């Protein structure tokens, strides 16, 4: 951001007046190609929305758009009790996000502020965790929760999602906490805050952009998680949206319009949520994993 605003006036000063036309054409080309790229990345999701709005009779038509849009796919799928699945998805996503923040904030704060024996080991453990994905060890995960009698439990999903997404949160928050000058915290303590009070009143508000980034990343990852939920959950009323909608894929035929109506309900809020923090993503990645 700052680099841009510094660079811009310097560049225009150097450029002679007769070349003023050229940058304008350049901007048009730049913007044009960026819009085309953006559209390409949206196309599958546009197709998803269009299919979700296709009337049942037109689902097999070989055209781009149906003759009219039909919202009954949404009302139909909603009346199958999708609200329950929606709330299961919310429980999982909110639960794992809360758990991640609860354990990652103290860990990130302490590793950013103090030197202690085993700090490198801890950070290495976190780094290694980031490399693992539940997909690769689904056999072990199933077996573990079988041991604890937690098959078909939403809590198991909250734990798994929190465990596999915590590493990223620790890295991002560690960088944010580390960037806050220690003097600010000391000043608060001098003014009569306790250590914990200083953390809540000073440090956490200052690190809010990092916390929000970590929060949304975790929320979205937990919301979209599919394989562990598919493996661990057997009751219909405990299925999150991702598993529920995939039920519309049959072995011999697929109920495409209802599948996509469910997908739209599951996907669009997340895309909007992500778009809201778009500006923070770059700075979050700068100070977090990419350093």
């Amino acid at each position: 951001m700052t680099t841009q605003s510094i660079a811009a006036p310097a560049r225009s000063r150097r450029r002679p007046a007769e070349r003023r036309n050229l940058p304008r054409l350049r901007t048009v080309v730049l913007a044009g190609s960026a819009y085309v790229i953006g559209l390409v990345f949206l196309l599958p999701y546009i197709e998803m929305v269009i299919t979700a709005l296709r009337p049942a009779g037109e689902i097999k038509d070989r055209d781009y758009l149906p003759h009219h849009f039909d919202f009954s796919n949404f009302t139909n799928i909603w009346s199958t009790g999708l609200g329950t699945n929606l709330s299961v998805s919310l429980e999982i996503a909110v639960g794992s996000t809360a758990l991640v923040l609860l354990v990652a904030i103290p860990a990130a704060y302490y590793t950013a502020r103090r030197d202690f024996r085993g700090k490198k080991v801890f950070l290495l453990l976190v780094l290694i965790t980031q490399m693992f994905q539940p997909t690769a060890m689904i056999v072990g995960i199933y077996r573990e929760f079988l041991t604890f009698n937690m098959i078909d439990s939403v809590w198991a999903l909250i734990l798994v999602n929190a465990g596999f997404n915590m590493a990223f949160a620790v890295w991002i928050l560690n960088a944010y906490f580390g960037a806050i000058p220690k003097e600010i915290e000391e000043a608060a303590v001098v003014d009569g805050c306790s250590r914990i009070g200083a953390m809540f009143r000073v440090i956490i508000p200052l690190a809010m952009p990092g916390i929000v980034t970590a929060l949304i990343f975790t929320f979205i990852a937990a919301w979209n998680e599919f394989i562990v939920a598919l493996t661990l959950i057997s009751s219909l009323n405990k299925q999150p949206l991702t598993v529920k909608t995939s039920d519309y894929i049959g072995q011999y035929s697929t109920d495409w319009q209802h599948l996509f109506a469910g997908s739209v309900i599951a996907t669009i809020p997340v895309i909007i949520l992500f778009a809201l923090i778009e500006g923070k993503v770059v700075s979050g990645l700068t100070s977090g994993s990419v350093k």
Partner: protein
Amino acid sequence: MTQTTHAGVRGSAPDPGGAPRRPRRKGGLVRALAPLPWIGPATGLILFVVIWPVIAMFQTSREHYSSLGVLVGSAGWNNFTRLFDEADLGGVVVRTVVWVVAVVGATVLISLGVAQLFNKEFPGRRFARWALIAPWAASVVMTSIIFKWMLDPNNGVVYVLLKQLGLVKNFNTNDTNWLGDPTTAFWCAVFVAVFVSIPFTTYALLAGLQAVPSDVYEAAKLDGANPLRTYWSVTLPLLRPALLVAALINVMNVFNSFPIIWELSGGGPGSQSATTTIFMYQLKQSSIGEAAAMSVVNFGFIIVIVLLFLRASKWNSAED
């Protein structure tokens, strides 16, 4: 960064508020346990959710299960011998290497271009960036299913377009059955994997680009370097840390990727479009022990990749 602020503060002034309340000398045990309330819960969560399954996976790979999934007894290394005797395994491993190299290579190359473009100022940049975020926010499972639908042999919208262009003659023929043929199905999966990997990679590179100080470019310009030359010898070296981290995260994601190939072709026909991750799931249908053996082998691959990358980046290059 953390270390320097720390040392500086400690050197200049001893912590005025904390000092009287806390005794100067603590027992070694107390001091060793002091971090526990802070990092204990995080460590516990990692041990319970990540490390335990790893151990359970190793155990399962040494056990013999009946076809109904009942534990019969120890299998020794039988699951591994049976896995290595699988006729498909060689092809699957080779395909996995092609999969990772092709997807990560294409993703990084395309993202370098897209990041360069999206780093420029132009009206509506925000909207273009928003659009790019969609595949990142949406679940990969959903995205894969959409692509499967767009490649439906009867009415896939991709074939509808190709038919109008005259490249596809008839529906429900081999022309429109890309997902039924192992080779084309595999390359369709590569395409989808690149598609879903580009947003994150582009953003990571954008973050790297914004960290490049502008005076570096001014200096290059004064030296008379052309844009291509500037990019090659100024931008790219400075992007190296971001590039390495982005590539490493991509290698992991792509290697572990399950939904894309699974939804598009199921790894089939047979295992002809499967990677090792998919093959593990295929084995899981018939033999849990052998599937666990496959995950242990996968696990080994992951460790090797991490070690190679740690060495390549020399633990985040310039900083340490």
